[in-house]
């Protein structure tokens, strides 16, 4: 497809990404001047150790996590909206987050009930592994079901059913759980970009990069899906094969992100709409990169707000994304009056 010229908007977006990345590192509960941050990065010994540790082991991994989570969730949301031709679809529509929640619930709440134990050491990997397993099991079920089903819309309903099913089991587990375990589980549900070790950030980045590269290959089938499945098929597209690939890539993005940072609401649903409104386009050659960059920027901003600069308190990121995001989307829609996929 021929694309309109978008060079300047993309340049502005990229500059914005760099700006907010630096701002995200600069602002936090401890006020660290910019030159001290830069010195920490180049490992200049004149910076005090506490600052260097905060910057290198806390703020930079957190900012990278925010970029990856924001971009990945936004791309996933875009894919689901196009595949299901539904502007309300999001990355969690397949029940991935419910699967991840169930995995974590079984780990945290189940351990209490069934008498298992978890040392603090094991938690670094136990949580993401449990969440990934949960997400993966849901993905597997959805894929098995989708191979039996011709109608794409039915997959949407199957995803919803898996979500309800998982939510029900979580309710039962919660009912029998002790207060402190329940609190731990609820905290996971708030989402958190912080506390990822460099090893975790590395794995997150690796999976993100692979999924991102594969996403580029999906641009062509996604564009033909803009005409609807039957037209796409008449253009020679292998509809079921491409559908499976889109589902797998989306699950890879959302599964690994949810595993490490918890279920983060709003980004995946709203960012693709913001990208469509900003660029006034439906072409995935434009929407894929713009959703990714916008997602990263928006999650960086939400994280800055959640940190309440120069304050000890940190608000749950999940609350911030919704509190600030929902009004923005409502305002954009009222202003533009039309909603597209």
């Amino acid at each position, binding site marked *: 497809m021929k694309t309109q010229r978008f060079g300047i908007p993309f340049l502005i977006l990229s500059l914005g990404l760099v700006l907010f990345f630096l701002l995200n590192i600069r602002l936090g509960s401890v006020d660290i001047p910019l030159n001290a941050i830069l010195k920490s990065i180049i490992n200049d010994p004149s910076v005090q150790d506490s600052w260097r540790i905060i910057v290198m082991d806390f703020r930079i991994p957190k900012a990278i996590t925010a970029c990856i989570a924001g971009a990945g969730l936004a791309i996933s949301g875009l894919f689901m909206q196009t595949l299901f031709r539904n502007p309300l679809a999001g990355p969690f529509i397949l029940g991935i987050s419910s699967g991840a929640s169930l995995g974590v619930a079984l780990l945290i709440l189940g351990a209490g009930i069934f008498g298992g134990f978890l040392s603090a050491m094991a938690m670094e990997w136990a949580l993401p592994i449990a969440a990934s397993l949960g997400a993966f099991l849901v993905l597997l079920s959805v894929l098995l079901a989708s191979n039996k089903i011709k109608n794409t819309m039915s997959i949407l309903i199957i995803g919803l059913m898996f979500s309800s099913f998982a939510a029900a089991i979580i309710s039962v587990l919660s009912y029998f759980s002790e207060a402190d375990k329940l609190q731990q589980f609820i905290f996971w549900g708030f989402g958190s970009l912080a506390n990822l070790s460099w090893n975790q950030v590395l794995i997150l980045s690796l999976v993100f990069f692979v999924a991102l590269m594969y996403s580029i290959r999906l641009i062509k089938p996604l564009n033909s899906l803009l005409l609807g499945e039957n*037209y796409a*098929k008449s253009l020679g597209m292998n509809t079921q094969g491409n559908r499976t690939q889109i589902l797998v890539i989306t699950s890879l993005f959302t599964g690994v992100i949810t595993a490490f940072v918890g279920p983060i609401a709003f980004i995946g649903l709203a960012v693709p709409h913001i990208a469509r409104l900003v660029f006034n386009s439906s072409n995935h050659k434009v929407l894929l990169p713009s959703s990714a960059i916008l997602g990263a920027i928006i999650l960086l901003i939400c994280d800055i707000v959640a940190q309440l600069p120069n304050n000890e308190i940190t608000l749950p990121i999940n609350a911030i994304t919704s509190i600030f995001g929902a009004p923005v989307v409502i305002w954009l829609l009222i202003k533009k009056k039309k909603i597209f996929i």
Partner: protein
Amino acid sequence: MAKKNIISSKNLSIGYPTKNNPVVITSGIDVSIFEGDFIAILGKNGIGKSTFLKTLTTELAPIEGNIQLMEADLNSYSSKQLASVISVVLTESIPMNQLTVQELIALGRQPYTNWIDNLSERDTEVVNKAMMDTETFDFKDKKIYELSDGMKQRVLIARALAQDTPVMILDEPTVHLDLYHTVQIFKLLKKLVEEQGKTIIISSHELNLSIKFASKLMVMNETTNHFGTTVELIAAKAFETLFPADGISFDSESQQFVIK
């Protein structure tokens, strides 16, 4: 010189597959469609026009008999191969999106573009020509949702044209259109047949216009399916079978349907 046979079927039964026994909508379809034919399929609602077209585009498998496409079994075509032989205009509306007219028409080039869908010089040429032929070039930068139904239909035809296939299949291409735009679409299709040698198959409820513009007609009813030129069909008294006797009748002298 004998014209090339494009599509032929012998004693074809069509319908929907179910688990135990398939639902047969209609059977005994014998057609042979040649290069440059403009075929209109007539019949009342639910008689199997769309089913027949879906069978031609392999969305449905024939229940009995088979279809030959350019002297090869239709089943032997992969969906990729078929995309360079048959292009379609469907009755379903396209999802609400922000594609421009040009972008949408360029999607017709997908069977020929590379993995990242870059348009070659030739692709751009074909897209431009498709826009010229359908008179959609003037609003190529408009968004799809800004167009009237008549314009939208021309754009969808342009998209099929950009796909550059010898056969075009259009399911009720003039539904929702007023008489003026309906005639415009029929004229456009006739032009494509005459100037570019396309083989076009449409289903339509525009009986009189179909008789006037199409080179051959297929008249479908519950018991038999007639296929031939208007003169042949009049001789076979096919048009009289189209509707129950009260209300509408066919006047063979003016070759038109009239209201009693």
